[in-house]
């Protein structure tokens, strides 16, 4: 069996106009034609599975996956019921649905398959399956969109889907049923007068489609929160389908994109986009967020909006600043041009504290652990069992700067030699402000360039680490 994978991805609009009344508006008809073209491309790709992530099927406890092998009913839209009814009878791959459910659980996600007569399949999924799979030849699977899920949860959902696609050798097409800008007119309109709700929405939609046309899917994923704030009715917490689709495409930016149509549907932005996995040689990733493999719980997503209480109160204070847990400590390796210091904490692997190359000194990542005692000023971020502890980011950041100072002084230089710093924080939302404050007091006065990244974890229970390049002291 050859290894499975994605043979293509499609973004399609959700409203029922393209199924029921495309002839009432030229734009709706162009969208319908684009759907038909997409259906042909799917057929030509010899795909044997359609995976739909629908934004019009919300869930609360994790994600739900449709597993009824032949769901049948008549769909009527909550808003556009006067356009008519859509009877459906779909071909669902329940075996795949169950395998995906299992894979989700293995990656820490809450997940459930559903198989109930009369289950109301959502409008986005109905429209997508009706038009992209008109003869029902290709089996499909549908997943819900969790209202509370943030990026990590949505990304892991894609990874577990890919796990199953690869393991079962499937040739899958990933589909997101979604609007771009989703603001509709709030009153009835004459179909002839349909247009994108505002110029601002239209400009954003065109920007998104410019990226997608260049195959830069991951860039759209990275902009997801910004797009949501700019052109999405704030009904759910994020513009997540692009996270899922980017995850399904292994967070690539060099796909081959083709925008088949872009039109208004009652004011909302509807587009049919084809993303072919063939590398286009276009943009590469400029940056990316935490490439999370396992979902370990929500990160108080509502805190970001300032409308939920802090959970810190429930987290016990650290009882001690030393820690016996964590990886084994190593003696720093010695070799030509390496610089080591007894005044800096021991490495957690086979590497030196620093290395000199020409006029530059490259430091290994420096954390806050104290030389000798291995204590963490400000406290560890979790206990031996991994339960979170309350810690002081400012104390940790100060300790990192002190350790950098010691290593540089050992090499014969000083903190003033620092040229460039890459900082890693395990919790950007919680810690950035405190970290930034200490920075301003210390390295900020020295003036190196700086990049700050959020990452999932560091090898020891610390919240901050810095990677430093410094001017090497003159050799005597």
């Amino acid at each position, binding site marked *: 069996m050859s290894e499975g994978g994605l043979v293509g991805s499609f973004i399609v609009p959700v409203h029922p106009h393209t199924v029921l009344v495309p002839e009432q508006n030229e734009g709706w008809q162009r969208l319908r034609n684009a759907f038909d073209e997409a259906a042909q491309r799917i057929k030509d790709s010899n795909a044997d599975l359609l995976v739909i992530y629908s934004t019009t*099927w*919300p*869930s*609360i*406890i*994790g994600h*739900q996956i449709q597993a009824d092998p032949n769901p049948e009913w*008549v769909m*009527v839209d*909550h*808003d*556009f*019921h*006067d356009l*008519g*009814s859509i009877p459906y009878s779909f071909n669902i791959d329940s075996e795949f649905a169950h395998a995906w459910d299992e894979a989700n659980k293995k990656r820490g996600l*809450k997940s*459930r398959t*559903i198989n*109930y*007569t*009369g*289950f*109301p399949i*959502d409008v986005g999924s109905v429209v997508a399956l009706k038009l992209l799979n008109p003869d029902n030849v290709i089996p499909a699977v549908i997943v819900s969109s*969790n209202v*509370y899920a943030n990026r990590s949860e949505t990304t892991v959902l894609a990874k577990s889907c890919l796990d199953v696609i690869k393991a079962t050798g499937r040739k899958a097409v990933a589909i997101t049923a979604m609007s771009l800008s989703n*603001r*509709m*007119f*709030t*009153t*009835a309109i004459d179909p002839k007068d349909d247009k994108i709700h505002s110029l601002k929405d239209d400009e954003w939609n065109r920007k998104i489609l410019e990226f997608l046309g260049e195959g830069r899917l991951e860039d759209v994923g990275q902009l997801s929160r910004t797009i949501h704030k700019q052109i999405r*009715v*704030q*009904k759910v917490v994020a513009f997540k389908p692009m996270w899922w689709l980017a995850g399904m495409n292994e967070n690539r930016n060099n796909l081959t994109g083709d925008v088949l149509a872009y039109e208004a549907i*009652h004011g909302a932005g509807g587009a049919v986009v084809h993303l072919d996995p063939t590398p286009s040689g276009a943009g590469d990733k400029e940056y990316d967020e935490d490439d999370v493999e396992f979902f370990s719980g*929500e990160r108080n997503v*509502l805190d970001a909006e300032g*409308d*939920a*209480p802090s959970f810190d109160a429930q987290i016990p204070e650290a009882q001690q600043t030393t820690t016996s847990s964590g990886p084994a400590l190593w003696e720093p390796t010695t070799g030509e041009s390496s610089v080591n210091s007894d005044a800096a904490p021991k490495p957690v692997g086979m590497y030196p504290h620093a290395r000199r190359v020409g006029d530059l000194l490259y430091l290994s990542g420096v954390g806050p652990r104290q030389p000798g005692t291995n204590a963490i000023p400000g406290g560890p971020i979790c206990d031996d069992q991994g339960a979170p502890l309350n810690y002081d980011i400012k104390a940790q950041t100060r300790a990192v700067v002190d350790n950098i100072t010691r290593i540089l002084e050992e090499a014969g230089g000083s903190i003033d030699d620092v040229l460039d710093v890459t900082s890693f924080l395990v919790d950007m939302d919680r810690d950035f402000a405190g970290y930034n404050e200490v920075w301003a007091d210390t390295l900020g006065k020295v003036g190196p360039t700086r990049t700050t990244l959020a990452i999932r974890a560091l090898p020891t229970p610390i919240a901050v680490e810095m990677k430093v390049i410094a001017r090497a002291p003159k050799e005597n």
Partner: protein
Amino acid sequence: MTQGEIVAGCLAPHPPHLVYAENPPQNEPVAEGGWEQLRWGYERLRESLKDVDYDAIVLLSPHWQTYVGTHFLGLPNFKSLSVDPVFPNLFRYHYDLNIDVELTRNIHDKAAEAGLSVKMMENPDFRVDYGTITTGHMFNPVWDKPLVVVSSNRSRDYYSVEVMQEMMIELGRVTREAILESGKKVVVLASNSLSHRHFTTESEIPEDMSKEHITSHAMHLWDMRMIDYIRSGQAQRILDEMPEFTEQAIAESDGGGLSWLLSTLDTPSYPGILHGYGTIIGTGNAIVEWPERNHKEASQ
């Protein structure tokens, strides 16, 4: 013609768990009484209205979500199977309900005259949402009164709580006017929870009541504050604080039901009767009756 009357207005939430708890034959797990507190609350509400005569129920559910104005069920009968898309394991219900099309039409027309965007829903294949069914069932399990079913216009999502409330107060005003003109006796129901932050995980045992609680202290404080206003007859303060309440408690009043209800009752300054309060997967639910009939007697 005699003047119509609102005999009572009620806050009547719709967690599907309340119906599931009756152990309908399709239930997978067997209910263990976890949701009885709220079911007893509904029992007290039904008992309180047992001797009160009325002709129709007017109900607004936040699970018929419309973005293009406010819609009304506009055919005499709807009969089908309602399956909750969020908790299909808990809620699958065969319904057969009648609509008071005449009263519906009157409210619709008055709303249109007042400049609100409205539409009658006349597609016979339309499935009635589970919020309407749950509240309808818990309030009147025999379904022997015709309903007026009003959709939840999502103007809060499109604009703000303030704009939503302005529109809902206007809709409440015309609803009241149409009821008074109809000569009918009517009960008005707003189908929504108070604080509305759910748990995102579930316990092994479906009704492990050692795990059920409000999601956070802040949600608790908001619910208690609202209940205090309800019990002390300060509906105006509920309306005044609706923006903060809706945003900070992520309250299901975002669907407009509570603002609309209070407006149909002409912003009552008499106390509401709290028949029950309880949490369901972390959300706060109160069952409340504002007996407008008592108010009227008192002022005579």
